[in-house]
Every structure is written in C-alpha cells, then in structure tokens.
C-alpha cells in the first residue's frame, strides 16, 4: 500500500505500525447500519450522554465507502445477509467489523431458519459484544477493545508473518466437529 510495504522488518516498521495504528484507531468511522433494537443503543452511544465523539467516531457515515467500521447491530435475517455482505464489500480497506448483540454474534435466542446464526458466517468479525441489547457502555467497551486491536495490528512484513502464523495455527488446531468440550 505504502511505506509499510517497503520498510524492512525492524524498528522503522514498528514505528510506522505504532503511528498508523494510533491514527487509525483515533478516527474510526462507523457506517450507518442498524438492523434491529441494538441500533437504538448504538444511536444512544452516539448521542450526547455517551458521546462516541470523545473517541473520534461520532460521524456515522451514510456511505460505506467512507466508513471503516461496520457495527452489525441486530439480528441478520437470511434475506438481509447479501445486503450485509455488500455493505462490507463496499467499505474500503482497512475495515473492521463489530458484532453487536447476541443475535448478530450467534443468532441469540432466534435459533431458527430465518436468522443467520452469527454474522461471522458472512463477514469476518473482529470483536463480539454480548448483550440483548448491550448498553451503550458495553458498546463503548467493545469499541475500546477494538481500538487496542487496531493499535496492535501488524503491517507489511510483520502482517504477512502474522497471517502465516495464524494460518499454521488454524491448520494445527482441533476441528470444531472434533471438540468434545467437557463431555465425558
């Protein structure tokens, strides 16, 4: 993309990472995208009592092309799933997804054929937030956790190494179907 691709792994790259992470996390613009009741709490988080603008993200962009955070606020029906995916695809890189509320995260109490059982079936999710709906403080807490992820994100060579390590770990890991949990 830019400087970070050319920089060798070392103090120069880590400095670029720190600066880029700081700038990215301090100007995270969410896309205006509410699906259900969680959107009410998301709006409350943006309003004056909780005031997301304290973290540089009060501008909920109506166009996904100007946004870099998608807060999936509400249950995603099967019919809505292609729309969610299209909004995600229209956002420009780098982009992050916050799955707000139990319905978006796992289907929640709507364990039926109409609801996508977790928005991670259609888009990659960076952070999950439980609650039905989560209060605005919980949303801010999740956003701050996401800020920390963004701050720590590797770039350039380090990013490729991290991706390779993650892939190797995923290949080594026990497949979900073989996980028996605590069952005897």
């Amino acid at each position, binding site marked *: 993309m830019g400087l970070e691709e050319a920089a060798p792994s070392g103090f120069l790259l880590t400095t670029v990472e720190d600066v880029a992470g700081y700038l990215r996390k301090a100007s995270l613009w969410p896309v205006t995208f509410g699906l259900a009741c969680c959107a009410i709490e998301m709006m409350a988080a943006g309003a*004056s*009592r*909780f*005031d997301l603008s*304290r973290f540089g993200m009060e501008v909920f962009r109506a166009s996904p092309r100007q946004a870099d955070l998608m807060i999936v606020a509400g249950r995603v029906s099967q019919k809505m799933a292609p729309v969610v995916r299209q909004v995600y695809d229209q956002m420009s890189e780098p982009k992050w997804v916050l799955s707000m509320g*139990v319905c978006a*995260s*796992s*289907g*929640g*109490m709507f*364990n039926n054929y109409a609801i996508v059982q*977790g928005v*991670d079936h259609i888009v990659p999710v*960076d*952070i*999950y*937030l*439980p*609650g*039905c709906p*989560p*209060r*605005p*403080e*919980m949303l*801010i*807490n*999740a956003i*701050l*956790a*996401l*800020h*920390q*992820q963004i*701050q*720590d994100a590797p770039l350039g060579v380090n990013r490729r190494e991290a991706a390779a390590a993650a892939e190797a770990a995923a290949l080594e890991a026990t497949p979900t179907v073989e996980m028996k*949990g*605590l*069952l005897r």
Partner: protein
Amino acid sequence: MSDYQPLRPRKGPIGRALAPVAGFGVTLGSMFRPTVTEQYPFEKVPPKPRYHGRHQLNRYADGLEKCIGCELCAWACPADAIYVEGADNADLAATDGAGAHRSPGERYGRVYQINYLRCIFCGLCIEACPTRALTMTNDYELAGPTRAGMIYEKQDLLAPLAEGMLAAPHPMVEGTTDTEYYRGEVTGPTAEQVAWVREHRPDDPTVEAAARVVEGEAPPPRPTRHRLRGSATKSAAARAAGTAAAGAQREPEPGTDAPTAEDAVRPKGVHA
C-alpha cells in the same frame, strides 16, 4: 388556502428580523446548562443494584458451592445458553479423598457453561435456581474477539473465595445436611474441615485464612461477588480493554465488599 389563519400571533418587526438567528438561542442557552455526557471508561456510573449483568455461581460461607447441578437454569433458559452437567459428590472420594464435597448434599455441578453470545440476560435462570446458587452481578464489560472465548466456564463464573473461605472440595460441616446450609446456619469453616484439607491438600492457599477464622482471630467470611472494574485513567482503560480483548479479563476483583444482593435476598420461603 388564502383564508389560512395561523394559531400563533404573527411576530412583530423585531421578532421577524431576528427569526433567522433565533435558533442559536437554543445553542447559546445550552452552554450554561450542566453537561450530560458520562465519561464512561474514565468515570463509570454504576448501574442499578438489580441490573442484569453477568452471572455468578455463589458459595456458602465455608467455601462449598451452592450449585447442585439440577439443570433447572438450563431448562428455564429461553435462548439455550446454559449447559450444566451434574455429578455425585460421592464420586469425589476416589480423587479428592473420602468425604469430599463440592456442594452440600448429593450432587454438584461438574460442568457449568454459559454462552454469552446466546444469553439475553433475562434472568429466568436466576428465578429458576432453587438454591440461589446463580445470581447476576453488575459487571457488564463483556467483549471478546472469539466466539469460543465468550463461553464462560465454571471457573469463570464461580464467586471468588472470600478471605476465610476454605476452597472446595472438603467435607460438609459435621452433623449438618444440605438443609442446614440452605437455611444459612453454616457461617464459616470448622476445625474439622480445616484439618481435613490440611491432611489432603497441605499446600492449599486458603487453609491459613480459614484456620484463623476457626480460631476466632478473623471475622467469618462474607460472600464476595464479581464487580465492575473500577474507573480507569486513559491508558489503564486502554490496557484493560486490551486484556479483555485477549479474553483474559475474567478475574474477579477480590476483597471486601458491601453486603451483597445475595445477603439481602433470602431464598424464597426460608426464614432462618
């Protein structure tokens, strides 16, 4: 529509001249009103005492768990978020020593999982619990990067051992049944329990404090509960959020606590 009569009288010439900037009066006036913004991660406003936050599995005063593994919470759950598997206390004798108990009575909850990505915090599990083992706390700071990490296991949900409580498993207070426990007649560990733990787990870290309670040098233990993490400075808040993202922020805050909601609310139909 030329005969339209406005309900409000027309403004005079001065009012009409100032009309384009009259809206700024609201802006100007609000400058002199107090700020409504809550500085959330830096100054946390505690939720109401009966707020439905994350769950907690409580303990009796001698450290035994209240959960008896009856699965009523799992049956009550409308979102199927709870998974419980009970086991016999008698089976503990093989591994932990004869007479060991995790909970008073016959059964204990061997597996206890709450999937916080299904839980809707409705509190029906709390209403269903017959021993008041499961209650809700005021902690709402739950967020994590993985779905698997949001399934809280029993060790994440159990109430922290208060100072003076004896870690389970150990025998029940001699001469009691689960009924005495349920009535609140057990107020702390006894000498026999401490001796049992000394014999079977000599390096247990809770023995010394429990022994002080037995000898009367320390007050009987008070139940503790998971609490919302305290207000933080900017950097500390970021660090706490970072560890929460790593899925590690589950340690309850130990320490002394005001009387809990659990103290205030007796089990239904029991008057000790």
